[in-house]
């Protein structure tokens, strides 16, 4: 079964700082990769996803992530954060099978991001 690790559980940045949140997964086969964001008291929303093709994917609100297969990584980046980016960020992965099926999403433990004005 696949697993996901997010290296930073709590990150505190000032506005306009650059952001990079690490995500590594363990699974030897083909995967779909996702980043979700959860604003305080709200549900999870999709930021971006990678299924295939260009390993650099762009999402909403200026976020992007790069899939590096050799490193089993899918790090999330944003060049300049805003106070409104304060939220919980979850990396998630599911394994794809040759028959076309896939597992349910496995989530990392989340990174709590606080942006100070």
């Amino acid at each position: 079964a696949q697993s996901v690790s997010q290296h930073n559980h709590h990150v505190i940045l000032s506005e306009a700082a650059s952001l990079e949140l690490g995500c590594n997964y363990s699974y030897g086969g083909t995967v779909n990769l996702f980043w979700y964001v959860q604003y305080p008291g709200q549900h999870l929303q999709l930021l971006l996803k990678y299924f295939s093709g260009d390993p650099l994917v762009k999402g909403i609100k200026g976020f992007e992530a790069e899939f590096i297969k050799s490193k089993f990584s899918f790090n999330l980046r944003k060049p300049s954060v805003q106070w409104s980016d304060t939220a919980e960020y979850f990396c998630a992965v599911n394994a794809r099978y040759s028959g076309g099926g896939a597992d349910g999403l496995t989530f990392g433990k989340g990174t709590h991001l606080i942006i100070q004005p």
Partner: protein
Amino acid sequence: DTAVSQTPKYLVTQMGNDKSIKCEQNLGHDTMYWYKQDSKKFLKIMFSYNNKELIINETVPNRFSPKSPDKAHLNLHINSLELGDSAVYFCASSRQTGNTIYFGEGSWLTVV
């Protein structure tokens, strides 16, 4: 209109009670899920149904029983509630397994 809607949003109940959380999706998706988010924000899949059939059943106490009357609904029934069941329960759906998952707004369950 909310794509994945779940009720109730907040539920406070006593230990030992039986409660249900309902979920409906109007996206025409084939697959639905229940996830549990604990106090440390850790998200864990509980169940997944594809076209009303159970396809994922993680290690969950058998006090938790999902029911899917049709592919647009996946309800969660919990018997004999315990303090440790306090969490946020998220319903979700996807077109098929492996596709993007869309989450409901969560049901905050507190067992006292």
